[in-house]
């Protein structure tokens, strides 16, 4: 699955790092580092983390695995 955090909104509440510690880690007291493509096994936890964010800064892919293949060519363009 894919995740992006708007770190300009993030205020370092660490709720995500509580609820999905393998995907979201605090770097020091306040800075967040995260795995933008966490394993699908963590899906439930990542969704809990995203829901709990007090500033709603965590965006999880809405396309549920049916993304890229249809939507993006893997080879160079020429049309």
């Amino acid at each position, binding site marked *: 699955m894919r995740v992006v955090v708007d770190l*300009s909104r993030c205020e370092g509440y660490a709720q995500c790092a509580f609820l999905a510690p393998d995907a979201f880690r605090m770097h020091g007291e306040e800075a967040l580092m995260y795995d933008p493509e966490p394993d699908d096994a963590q899906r439930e936890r990542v969704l809990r983390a995203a829901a709990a964010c007090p500033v709603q800064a965590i965006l999880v892919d809405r396309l549920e695995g049916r993304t890229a293949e249809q939507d993006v060519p893997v080879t160079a363009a*020429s049309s």
Partner: protein
Amino acid sequence: MTSADNLRAFRRDGRIVIVGASLAGLRAAESLRDEGFTGSLTMIGDELGEPYDRPPLSKQVLTGWVPAGGTTLPRRRDIDAEWLLGVPASGLDLATDHVRLADGCEVPFDRVLIATGVRARPWFVPSEAELDGVFVVRTREHAEGLQRALAAGPSRVLVIGAGFTGSEIASICRERNIPVTVAELAPYPLVGALGAMIGEVAAEMQRAHGVDLRCGVKVTRLEGDAQGRLRRAHFDDGSTVDADVAVVALGGIRNTEWLQGSGLAAGVWGVACDTGCRAMDLNGLITDDVFVAGDVARCPNPVYEYRLISLEHWANAVEQAEIAAHNMVNGQAERWPHLSIPRFWSIQFGVNIKSVGVPTFADEVVVTQGSVTDHRFVAAYGYQGRVTAAVTFNNAKWLDHYRRLIETAAPFPPPCPTPDQPLDTKPVPVDFPGPTLLAQGATVVVTGHDPGERRVTAAHQHHR
């Protein structure tokens, strides 16, 4: 046909081309579909693969935690676009409304969004830049190469340039216990963005973490061995440093060359546009069908006396993309201005550095909360007696308050004390060239909460 009919027809089956398939381009495409645009949408990008996020490339990718190929951006929705990837755009013809690609293809449009962003500034001597072990960090390929070089356990890494990216990379080297030298022409790290006072704090932080920080020096030459591997760097003070990895972190170059001859006001500072993200031509006329968003946009901000500001900020790319997309498919009366106050963050040496506003638009700076020595504080920046920016070190929860001070042109220095009173509350000069050459324009305040209702009104200036 009325213009409303035209707009309806365009929204139904117009042709929009987005040049630049990174964060701003993707978010604009998603917003266009959110807005109900059902016409054709073409995404042009010079890199292969899906749009990916770049901030992790100088952070969790370099620590080795996250693979360089693992930062693909999530999608907010389907965009049903045609993707033309791997070939850069090479020209824009506004007489016939075509984008030219480097492979000779021509892509017609009714409206176009320019979101070509920035590329890394390479080392100035091409033969030295070619040496094994010399890196820049902008793309996932760059980050992957540098990560591998760091994992190999280099004897020393040289970081050239102590801006945000350079400082973040130095921080990660120390986290990985790799000896690192940072070379910076200015007297302190981060000084160009945040001024001398914060720069001094950043310098102390780097040294406390074991960085060999050398300020006020210039790297004059990168020397390779017989196999073409980097082995030494020479400084303008005659000294040298032996290093097998060098990271050139000297900022970016805006991708505007392809717009030469297009008639747009495009140059080294980006493509000028209005607050609605509509591009400006060389004569200063606003175009109707050409929009700009992201790092390549140069947009006026009324809060900063209508100066054209280019920002390499993540949130700016997202917000401009949404404003541009909205305005591309809406009529005159429904257009939104891009009025948000810039926000930025950096993670280094275990500290969350965040800023709001434009710290370079200031003449003085003062610590308003917390303790500088503990690296937990807020500093406010002021220009002509009003608050124009703030920076926090591990104090991000207060930052939104300072955004409001900026939007309301609140007096500087902030007059009221807080419980977490710093030891020294005297403003000091910011120590970078302030905007002194500007005419003294009116101060404005920003009102409204949602994009559709945000406006500015002129306000009385505060005088000390």
